[in-house]
């Protein structure tokens, strides 16, 4: 998403000037997304260029902006369109785990556990903010907090899933020649047996 749609949506409430827009934006996002005033004015001038807002005569040195019909159509379209997951930044964690799996000497289980504890700690802190409940009537704020909570939770679930997959994971033996490749299934089986033995040993300790 961009600041662009946020500002357009806010102007649906009525004409506002830059500082008012900034305050309203921060208020409605629970102060999780701070804007500088320069960003607001740059965005407003682009929106004006695209015919989505128009500037009104200055009063007391402030220039208010109002939304146009084209702008209203744009906002309606935005609300009606689901956010594509592909539009979000690439997931560094997924890439890190994929690399951990193929990098020699990396204990992938401990990478998973380290991340899970960190995410869990974050989740505990979000929950603590929520538990304080000093803004029970502020639904916008709660929605944003819940969004962060559910995202953190899904990361923990995904890490649980990764861990379960790791338990079953048997790295394929590097095929160095055709002969080695042909004997690979046997090698994989014995590696699996060895791992199973190891687990039994660990269990009886």
């Amino acid at each position: 998403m961009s600041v662009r749609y946020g500002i357009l949506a806010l102007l649906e409430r009525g004409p506002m000037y830059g500082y008012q827009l900034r305050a309203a934006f921060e208020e409605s996002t629970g102060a999780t997304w701070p804007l500088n005033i320069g960003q607001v004015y740059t965005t407003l001038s682009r929106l004006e260029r695209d015919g989505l807002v128009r500037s009104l005569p200055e009063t007391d040195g402030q220039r208010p902006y109002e939304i146009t019909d084209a702008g209203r159509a744009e906002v309606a379209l935005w609300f009606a369109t689901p956010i594509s997951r592909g539009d979000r930044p690439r997931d560094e964690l997924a890439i890190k785990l994929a690399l951990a799996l193929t990098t020699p000497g990396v204990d992938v289980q401990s990478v998973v556990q380290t991340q899970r504890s960190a995410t869990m700690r974050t989740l505990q802190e979000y929950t603590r903010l929520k538990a304080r409940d000093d803004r029970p009537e502020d639904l916008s704020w709660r929605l944003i907090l819940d969004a962060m909570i559910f995202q953190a939770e899904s990361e923990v679930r995904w890490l649980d899933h990764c861990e379960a997959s790791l338990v079953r994971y048997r790295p394929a033996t590097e095929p160095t020649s055709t002969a080695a490749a042909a004997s690979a299934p046997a090698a994989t089986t014995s590696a699996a047996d060895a791992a199973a033995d190891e687990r039994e040993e660990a269990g009886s300790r």
Partner: protein
Amino acid sequence: MTVLELRDVHRTHGRGEAAVHALRGVGLTVAAGELVAVMGPSGSGKSTLLNLAGGLDRPTQGEVHIEGQYLGSLNRRELAALRRRRVGYVFQDFNLLPSLTAAENVALPLELDGVSVRKARAAALAALAEVDLDGYAERFPDEMSGGQQQRVAIARALVGERRLVLADEPTGALDSQTGEAVLRLLRARVDAGAAAVLVTHEARHAAWADRVVFLRDGVIVDTSGPLPAAENLLGAAR
């Protein structure tokens, strides 16, 4: 004040080749005012830990103490009495007796312990008030929602002098809003002085705890405590 302490607890089921090592050297301390969540995949030893903590099962090795009392030194009868007086359970399916009212369900552990009916009822009404169920005393379980029944179960778990709550997936049968309300209530009761161990597989619910313990193959592999400054976190989330 320490309410629950597990010292190097082991639990092995069966012996020889077929032995299953459910817990292998677990240490855990839960103080009054503390909520500890236990997370782990199925088979990691969560239920065994909860059963040992509540004196429903005995460790193969190691010690369990409840409010300073070493459970290993108690005979069967004494252990049962300690469980009635000190430990409350909260289960996924509420486990209320359907033929008893909310107040009767909550009073039951006290009455079984020889407390007079009148005193037990007074304590039950007080416990129900603490979970915001004033006015529900005469309702039967099937006249209450799942969330209300679970609140009755929490009242029962903390009635009288009971201070230790062992909760096994208490939100498992509830929708997310109701589940959250139950966790919020449990958190409030702990803040008021109870000690609780919460077994759950939902991170969102475990997050209400002061500490989250990760159990794998009968061993605690990690513990996640809270960061000091919650206020800075929104900044970090940008």
